[in-house]
């Protein structure tokens, strides 16, 4: 995973509550075996009409959205399907962070594991973010100091310290998990749920 670096950017606002991952990336674009290349389908059915032409009023299609790396969304962002493709599509499009009053649990975890920063901002501070975005302010997202700053405001945010450390260091959780190999083996020996469930088939090619 790439280290999360401080970013200064304008913001795009799609401030609906409960934006589900089917809107972020419709299921028909999940028939891929790669992570890359999903940005073109981001918010596809809101972004394009049935005939494939862009929907002019949709936030991502407006001229001011060009190059924005921060998305401001409504409450419970990323609800529904667990598809990590939603995070890949947002990042492939160029987003580094999302500000919302709350996030769906699976989306938040997926985002953190890919380096897309989910920033929870509520109440007056959230309203302020919407206003600043509308006035095309530059937002600086600074994970080192846990703040988003605009010319007018400093907005502190909280984030899981373990995830924060992984993001700042560009650390992969799997490397951390695999360091506990002995503990995992010890657990397997004494697992109360039994030792094995499915008779395995042989692996091919040296795995």
């Amino acid at each position, binding site marked *: 995973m790439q280290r999360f670096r401080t970013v200064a950017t304008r913001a795009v606002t799609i401030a609906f509550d409960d934006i*589900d991952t089917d809107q972020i990336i419709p299921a028909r674009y999940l028939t891929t*075996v790669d992570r890359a290349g999903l940005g073109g389908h981001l918010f596809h059915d809101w972004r394009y009409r049935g005939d494939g032409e862009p929907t002019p009023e949709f936030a991502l299609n407006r001229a001011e959205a060009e190059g924005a790396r921060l998305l401001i969304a409504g409450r*419970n962002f990323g609800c529904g399907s667990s598809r990590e493709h939603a995070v890949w599509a947002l990042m492939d499009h160029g987003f580094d962070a999302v500000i919302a009053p709350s996030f769906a649990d699976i989306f938040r975890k997926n985002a953190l*594991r890919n380096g897309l920063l989910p920033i929870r901002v509520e109440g007056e501070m959230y309203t302020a973010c919407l206003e600043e975005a509308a006035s095309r302010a530059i937002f600086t997202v600074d994970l080192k100091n846990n703040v988003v700053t605009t010319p007018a405001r400093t907005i502190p945010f909280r984030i899981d310290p373990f995830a924060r450390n992984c993001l700042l260091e560009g650390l992969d959780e*799997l490397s951390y998990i695999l360091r506990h190999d002995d503990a*995992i083996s010890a657990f397997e020996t004494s697992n109360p749920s039994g030792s094995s469930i*499915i008779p395995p088939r042989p*692996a091919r090619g040296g795995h």
Partner: protein
Amino acid sequence: MPANRPRTLYDKIWDSHVVTEGEGGVSLLYVDLHLVHEVTSPQAFSGLRRRGLKVRARDRTLATADHVTPTRSLNIAAAGELAAKQLRSLEENCEEFGIRLYTMGHEYRGIVHVIGPELGLTQPGQMIVCGDSHTSTHGAFGALAFGIGTTEVEYVLASQCLLERKMGNLRVECEGRLRPGVTSKDLILALISKIGVDGGVGHVIEYAGPAIRGLSMESRMTICNMSIEAGARAGLISPDDTTFEYVAGREFAPTGAEWDRALDRWRTLPSDPGAPFDKTVSLDVSGLEPFISFGTNPSMAIPIRSRIPDPAAIADAVEREQVVRALKYMDLGAGEPVIDQKIDVVFIGSCTNARIEDMREAARIFRGRTVSEGVRALVVPGSEQVRREAESEGLDQVFTEAGAEWRLPGCSMCLGMNGDHLAPGQRSVSTSNRNFEGRQGPGGRTMLGSPLTAAAAAVTGRVTDPRDLLRV
């Protein structure tokens, strides 16, 4: 901690799966069962290959093909070029890494959350994960089961473990007893409409109370399945004799002395009296009517004999705007009765409602009736086993004689990845779990209901109270 502190079912499963307590409240948990399917796994296998890692516990990993599989033919080419490539990729990955796979043509293939339980893989007290949000289904057995993203699929393949922070614990107390013609699907839609699509965020739900105790395992699975639609990654039900009777004798269930030991362990799982919950919600189900959704998320659901909400009567501006948008998308009129709204398609299937009991419920309505002119009705069993059982009971005949299409198992029109989808503007009544915009196809309009409600709509061509056809 003191040994005698009363614990919830969630506490007990959590405690028994902690490999190590990590830094800052993050624990490493062991996964007993990892279910894999074609859509969310290819990038995880690529990751393993890149890192030179193998699958740690092949005896705890099972793959099936379900999301993009064709339902008219066993030939994977029938689902389209990209879908076929994804299915071939799953076959190659499972062969290379040594994972048991139920692919097209296998007698046990089916929707991942249908086959786990029916094969006896899903057992009380387990920790189960899958790259699919409806993994919550398995919680009906008193297993801690939740959906994960593809990066975590890779972690579990490599290590059989996940880093987790403990969630809150929400108890949903269901009083009373469902009336005839009212199902567990109606119960869960009623609950989601009450607590909202984010009512369970940050929590694991435990469903309890006499209304839950009286339900079959299949009905319980429908409830736990839709926990994620209330924002909860996992839904749990304490195991009881109904659970044990369901598991006993299934393909991968323990046998002999192992069964006795398992049973002793499983009986200790239910939440202790007085165990603390972070939140409790009560729902009296005695007066419940069949529920149907009118909007574009599962909380926008109402009793079938009531009227579609009028946004003008909604005080909260954000919620009002959401309903305005939803009604416009659904092409439904504010304040109109939901009953008699015209529909084009009926889909009976999905991990929510495609088990044998759902097929039997649908057949109760279809028997001796015909699908309304101009309506297309699809009945898609959840697995090959469900298909065979339904056919041995003659249910397929009931469906096809009524004019419905009897298809091969798969996720099908729940998410429309395999070629089964709504045309723009079509309205469906569907037994699936999500009525999001475009979920069943771009521009498609989904109304969620039980198998009874869906079948009733198929034969009348309109939203219909199934109790009128059942004469209950």
